């Protein structure tokens, strides 16, 4: 038996002429939570649907625990799917919705009752079993969809933007609830999301999908800190991109004529005496200040470029026009579609000679 619970090998999918999945390969270990992240139309749903068996790959194989699944019908794959708009059965009560998969398996009445009640508890829906879907809130419907997918005890759970239609607060709650539940049940889970923060927060691994390709597969930290392609670097996190005209202190000769990308968290902005390594810092002027609640977003001009950085509200406040020191810890340089991370030279040189 293979060590991989899900093993996708060189899968291609065409919709007519359109190449929707291009040589997709990836592996998932049992019990892991994998997030599929990428722009709209990138092909995330297509991948999920092929794993569910709702769509057939044109070539390549999909294996579960080493067994080829291509010809296996969706009914026999041991999967649970939560669709983006829930797809609940409107003419059935919450109880009957959840019991559907068990009824299909012809389980006994008492078993079904016990299992459904267990799931109602698990999803915090106790007491709502007799309601119909149109008598529930969005978050409750969402959880019914989860409970329904979990009832037949699937080995693999596939979620297509499970939280898309839910407001930010409930979303956050459901998110940690999902993570906990999946850990408890040990189900291998793939979920599609548009929300980077969501993927980074709960996923063990992230697949960045763009134009039918997998751009990068890695842990959230890898994706975030060492993007391998130009696309991933731009897509993940906030950033400013430009071709430097002047010199950014600490990166002499690194970025000549090439495009660089700087994230706000790479940029430290302070009054001259606040920066620990003055030798590595450049001089800049504050151009804009935006209050972000937990911090200030500061736009500074350095060598003719506008950089964005964050500054704690605890520190003494800045004014527009203030002269400040700007320490750029690292930046990402693009070369032939690759993204290279470059650290500030002066920070690591033991003692630069020209202070």
């Amino acid at each position, binding site marked *: 038996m293979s060590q991989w619970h899900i093993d996708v090998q060189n899968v291609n999918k065409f919709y007519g002429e359109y190449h929707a999945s291009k040589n997709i390969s990836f592996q998932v270990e049992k019990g892991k939570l994998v997030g599929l992240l990428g722009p709209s139309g990138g092909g995330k749903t297509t991948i999920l649907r092929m794993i*569910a068996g709702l769509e057939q790959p044109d070539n390549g194989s999909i294996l579960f625990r080493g067994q080829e699944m291509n010809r296996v019908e969706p009914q026999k794959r041991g*999967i649970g*799917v939560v669709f983006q708009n829930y797809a609940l*059965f*409107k*003419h059935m009560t919450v109880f009957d919705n959840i019991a559907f998969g068990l009824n*299909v398996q012809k389980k006994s009445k008492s078993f079904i009752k016990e299992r459904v009640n267990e799931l109602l508890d698990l999803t915090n829906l106790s007491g709502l079993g007799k309601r119909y879907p149109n008598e529930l809130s969005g978050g409750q419907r969402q959880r019914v969809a989860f409970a329904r997918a979990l*009832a037949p005890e699937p080995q693999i759970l596939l979620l297509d933007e499970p939280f898309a239609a839910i407001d930010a607060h409930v979303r956050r709650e459901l998110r940690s609830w999902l993570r906990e539940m999946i850990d408890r049940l040990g189900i291998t889970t793939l979920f599609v999301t548009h929300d980077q923060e969501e993927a980074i927060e709960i996923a063990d691994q992230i697949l960045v999908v763009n134009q039918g390709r997998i751009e990068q597969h890695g842990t959230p930290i890898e994706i975030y800190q060492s993007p391998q392609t130009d696309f991933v670097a731009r897509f993940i996190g906030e950033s400013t991109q430009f071709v430097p005209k002047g010199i950014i202190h600490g990166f002499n000769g690194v970025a000549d004529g090439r495009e660089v990308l700087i994230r706000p968290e790479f940029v430290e902005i302070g009054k001259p005496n606040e920066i620990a390594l003055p030798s590595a810092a450049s001089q800049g002027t504050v151009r804009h200040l935006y209050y972000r609640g937990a911090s200030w977003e500061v736009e500074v001009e350095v060598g003719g470029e506008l950089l964005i950085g964050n500054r704690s509200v605890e520190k003494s406040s800045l004014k527009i026009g203030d002269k400040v020191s700007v320490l750029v810890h690292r930046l990402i340089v693009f070369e032939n579609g690759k993204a290279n991370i470059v650290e500030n030279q002066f920070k690591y040189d033991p003692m630069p000679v020209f202070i």
Partner: protein
Amino acid sequence: MSTRRTSSVIPGFGLTMGYTIVYLSLIVLIPLAGLFFKMGSGDWQHIIEVITSPRVLAAFRVSLLTSLGAALANGVIGLLIAWVLVRYPFSGRKFVDALIDLPFALPTAVAGIALTSLYSPKGWMGQLFGEIGIKIAYTPLGISLALLFIGLPFVVRTIQPVLQDAETDVEEAALTLGASRWVTFWKVILPTLLPSWLTGVSLAFARGIGEYGSVVFISGNMPMKTEIVPLLIITQLEQFDYVAAASIAVVMLLLSFLMLFVINTLQWLARRRMQNT
């Protein structure tokens, strides 16, 4: 479980409601009230005699049973046709789709004559069926056949849009939960279609009860056997017994109303769950 009252975005409820009531009164209610009025002007003894006469009772039975039979048969066939038209992109679909409306457009007498010449014992189909001992023209079966033709578009055209809008992801959800295609059809698709199916069937049924033109040719109009109520009413009119005609019409009206009411109640029960999600 409470129903939320949402007020409409578009104002003018008073005006539109007023117009609706005036219109309905002029076109529907006043003529119908006239019927009751006419009946009321008669002698009750006579009215009861007419209504309970074996010939009239037989006509009621023929009309109701053939209409109901045809409506139910159309329920099955219409569902199938709507399904094929919506779900399978075969070539010539547009053409078949256009054919469905033909019974709406064709003068019903034309349909009646065509069906009669086809299914009479000497006609093409009539000979075929005659060989296996089934008589169609001049029997209640023939009446049902005409009503089948007349009622089909009602069922197809009410189910089609609902089927078109039905999200296939509900069916996919059923599949991923382990349901076979058959179970998915019975437990998931059919219940969603039930309200519109009932609408279509009740429309076909109502149309069938009132149908005259296409039926009189194929039925043969034998009293006690294949005489339908609308024909009986006309017979009474031709004998200048207006009270009798009105009485039969009123009973027909009440019976139809009762049946439509039952169907609509069922439909309301089925539709209640389908909204808002």
